[in-house]
């Protein structure tokens, strides 16, 4: 079980609380987390990654265990604490603007 924290506007869009739980079968990677979030909450497709290119939207960032994973490739392994469910994977709206 992976814990994923969503930004406010995506929580309301998906009608969920601050944190959701997802299951991943296979390698525990950055891309697998995003695939699983989108599979469980299809209304979030396109809001985190561009529909056409599957690239991270410019004002979205991914944090985990104090690290910035925003610019890592999809096959990047998750930190052990995230893979074990001890720490959340955080999807964050960038600070720019307000």
């Amino acid at each position: 079980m992976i814990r994923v924290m969503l930004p406010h506007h995506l929580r309301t869009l998906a009608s969920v609380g601050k944190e959701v739980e997802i299951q991943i079968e296979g390698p525990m990677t950055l891309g697998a987390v995003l695939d699983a979030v989108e599979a469980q909450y299809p209304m979030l497709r396109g809001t985190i990654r561009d529909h056409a290119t599957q690239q991270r939207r410019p004002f979205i960032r991914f944090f985990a265990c104090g690290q910035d994973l925003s610019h890592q490739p999809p096959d990047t392994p998750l930190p052990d604490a995230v893979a074990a469910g001890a720490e959340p994977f955080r999807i964050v709206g960038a600070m720019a603007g307000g």
Partner: protein
Amino acid sequence: MSNVRVLVGTRKGAFILTSTEKRKRWKVSGPHFAGWEIYHVNGSPIDPNRLYASQSSGWFGQVIQRSDDGGKTWETPGGGLEKTPDGMPRGESNKFVYEGEVGTHQWYDGTQHPWEFKRVWQLKPSLTDPDTVYAGVEDAALFRSTDGGKSWQELPGLRAAKGHLWQPGGGGMCLHTIILDPNNPDRIFVAISAAGAFRTDDGGQTWRPINQGLKSPYELPDSTAEVGHCVHNIAMHPSRPNVLFMQKHWDVMRSADAGESWHEVSGNLPSDFGFPIAVHAHEPNTIYVVPIKSDSEHYPPDGKLRVYRSRTGGNEWEELTKGLPQSDCYVNVLRSALAVDSLESCGIYFGTTGGQVYASADSGDSWSPIVRDLPAVLSVEVQTLS
């Protein structure tokens, strides 16, 4: 007794304002989609409880929302747990992907720049089918859904109409106006900033520019170019679909031949710069504009918020000021923020960037605010409910 429902899109959510035909007391519902930019909310003409909303954010992109109960509840129509035959979640109600090669358009500096989807500016439900709806988007293109907003397909023939010469205006390169011809289901008009007006006569397969007569000496090297004009808004009365009225960047224009040719009808307006234009519900020759001082100063001339009405299809204009602020007013009225109802005494409505929504129940003779302190208003649509 009839009721009126005013659909307001703002920078921070959607609001629904409802009243009886007296239009004295208003109930305000919202914010819906709080904190998101709502460029447009629009209802189906044949199923008024079917509403579509364009919800967007610089962070999270585009979402399409749909209501089947007049805005009480909403859903992302393609966002459920429905799956495709190969087991993938659909989630396609916000998927706007250009057809074929993306191609390039002109950038602000005249160089070529690739098309990039940003948001939906305009939603236009079909006149005959509540599940069919058109979306005008930035970067400019026209999409259509025939399944109630679950999935969207581009009509790419439009971008073939010299798209490489289109360029963004101050608000981006947006398709902001869609007009469906009530007499001819194959005819659609659209307007794009800054490309001009375009028409299809074959249901959206092929398109051609309809900009003859437009002059843009300050914006274009060739002031009468076939495309590139910054058309801000177009309006039509359904009883006379060949007569179109246009608020261009500068100039108010009229066409009597479905856009084949245009001539200027700015007449005695204090400024012929502005954004929206609308036609009276029962008088096809009565039109409304809101003059703005200039493209460098997006506020009303002399700090006076004045709607101008022409009962002669343009050229001769009268100012309408009763109930509107006549000093120290520096709000703007954006291109989609002026609309009319179809009650016997025609109601006119507009929203401002200062968050006011003004209403007139007497064709513009007098005005009063329905609300004063909304976020900046991006769009206003009106439904007359029997």
